[in-house]
């Protein structure tokens, strides 16, 4: 076709800026990163440059820190189901109250919208164990309810407010040094603090907006039919709302996994510097420190490719498991 040939040349012209941009800043770098990952490249050349084949990857498998930080990354992702469930609940509730929806939506979306360094500095101040507002409130409750006296009367050792970002404790009782669970670690620590902040930021954010759109797309006939059959609130949710929202949930879960696996960098850099004792160092923060603080570009590139592969594999598994859910 003449028109096709004519338009092909035009299309090339329109695509040119983007093609160049992608070649230089995406496609090229991805391949280059793979090349870097088989070298021992040190940014300041304190070590002689060498091709090391797969040695970086071997080293990585034996790198205890890598495994500990993988666990940190997974631990921080434990907040995801709570954030998603919260978003769903909010969306369902909000979809019934159109009056004031703009005000509520604004309030709930505010943390997503302003998230970043400013919010993290705010939470860092709130979490401060000595001067922070959060512990001031907790201590005030502990005092006024005489909780400590109660616990001591029951033979306990007394309760004190968590030290939040300074504490290596966690809800699962994970050890700091080794991959195992020890009971003494049980409690609220830095990782839990970050999870709580993450839920606070995400709960009314993009996921809630997606659920809101999903709920408003449910045909009212389905709900009415269920009501005619005498279904209660829970039954309607279980048999109508939840299955109808399956595609939305699937999309949100896939995106949350992708985000969670490469997440945790900004909060680690701004709030904790990866501490205490490395408990808030995620894989992406580890890559940053390796590349831009220790200047081991080769090793960091290998790390980033392992992360990339993990994201790819987990996304594929999600598709396998969740893809079926979509055919209702």
């Amino acid at each position, binding site marked *: 076709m003449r*028109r*096709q040939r004519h*338009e*092909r040349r*035009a299309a090339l*012209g*329109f695509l040119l*800026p*983007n093609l160049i941009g*992608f070649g*230089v*800043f995406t496609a*090229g*770098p*991805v391949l*280059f*990163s793979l090349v870097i990952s088989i070298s021992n490249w040190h940014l300041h050349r304190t070590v002689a440059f060498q091709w090391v084949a797969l040695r970086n990857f071997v080293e990585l498998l034996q790198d205890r820190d890598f495994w500990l930080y993988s666990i940190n990354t997974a631990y921080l992702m434990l907040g995801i189901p709570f954030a998603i469930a919260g978003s769903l609940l*909010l969306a*369902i*509730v*909000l*979809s*019934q109250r159109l009056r004031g929806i703009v005000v*509520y*939506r604004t*309030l*709930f979306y*505010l943390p997503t*919208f*302003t998230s970043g*360094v*400013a919010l993290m*500095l*705010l939470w860092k*101040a709130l979490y401060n164990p000595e001067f922070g*507002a959060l512990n*001031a409130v907790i201590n005030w409750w502990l005092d006024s309810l005489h909780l400590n006296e109660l616990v001591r009367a029951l033979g306990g050792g007394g309760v004190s407010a968590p030290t939040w970002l300074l504490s290596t404790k966690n809800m699962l009782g994970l050890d700091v040094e080794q991959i195992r669970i020890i009971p003494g670690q049980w409690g609220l620590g830095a990782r839990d603090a970050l999870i709580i902040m993450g839920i606070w930021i995400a*709960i*009314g954010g*993009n996921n809630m*907006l*997606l659920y809101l759109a999903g709920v408003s797309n449910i045909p*009212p006939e389905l709900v*009415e039919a269920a*009501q005619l059959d005498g279904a209660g609130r829970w039954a309607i949710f279980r048999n109508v709302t939840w299955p109808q929202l399956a595609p939305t949930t699937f*999309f949100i879960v*896939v995106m949350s996994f*992708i985000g969670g696996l*490469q997440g945790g*960098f*900004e909060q680690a*850099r*701004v709030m904790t510097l990866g501490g205490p004792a490395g408990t808030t160092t995620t894989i992406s923060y580890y*890559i*940053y420190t390796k590349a*831009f603080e220790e200047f081991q*570009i080769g090793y960091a590139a290998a790390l*980033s490719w392992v992360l990339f592969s993990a*994201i*790819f594999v987990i996304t594929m598994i999600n598709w396998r498991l969740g893809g079926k859910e979509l055919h209702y």
Partner: protein
Amino acid sequence: MSAFPRERSGRHLAFSGWWYRRGRFTASHVLLVLMAVTMLVPFMWMVLASFKPLQEVEQLNPIPSVWRFENYPNVFEQVSFARYYFNSIFIAAWVTFLQCLTSAMAAYAFARLQWRGRDTVFRLYLATLMIPGVVLMIPNYTLMVKLHLLDSYLGLIVPASFSAFGTFLLRQFMLTIPSALDEAAAIDGASPWQIFWDVIMPLSRAGLVTLGIFTFLGNYGSFFWPLILIKSEHLRTLPIGMLYFDTVYGRQTNLIMAASVMNIIPLVILFVAAQRHIVRGVQLGAVKG
């Protein structure tokens, strides 16, 4: 006929029947108010703390005993906060302009022009969205070193000026424009560029506004790239400036909070002004993942 007549605009109120029967003060109402308060309290604390004298920040009284308005000018005295503001807005504005332009051009080629292999190329294009940013940071950093763009506006602007997401968003948008319009223009002898500029672009305004807002937001809050790229103080953007401000003056919580308030004020204004576009953009962007 349904035994439970729909109230108000039925489509959105799919559940209204059984919910409203429970009366005004339902569990849902309580939950909404509770959540709204939880969202609001940290922000309120931030604003109030930014007006307090330092020794009062840690105390429980919510209202400052003396309103220290001078906390705000103090931030400008201690660090070049005005400079950070300018850098952030300047860079974000350029990135927004360039990204809208390059994305619109590519979207036009994908949505309105006929050429062999178009959909394959588009799918490949979308696949690049899966690449995590961390993978690109290291090679792009070494590239910037080679190009002598470390520590420069150009290094912050140029790599951010292309977006597969933006191309996707605008393509979805342009697909909804009736094809009769560009055919008519083509018959009148208009070149593809004229059709793009005079027909498609004006009709894509809503899509461009949505993309523009998201790009501006994303870049205004951008952290990783400026953190590794910028060394000189006068080139710092707001997030980087805030980070170092906290490192050096971290104990002055009232000033940090004043800076944080100033950081998010432009965002709040933008959100209130453009809420409709933002909500639609989030929902549109996820249609096809």
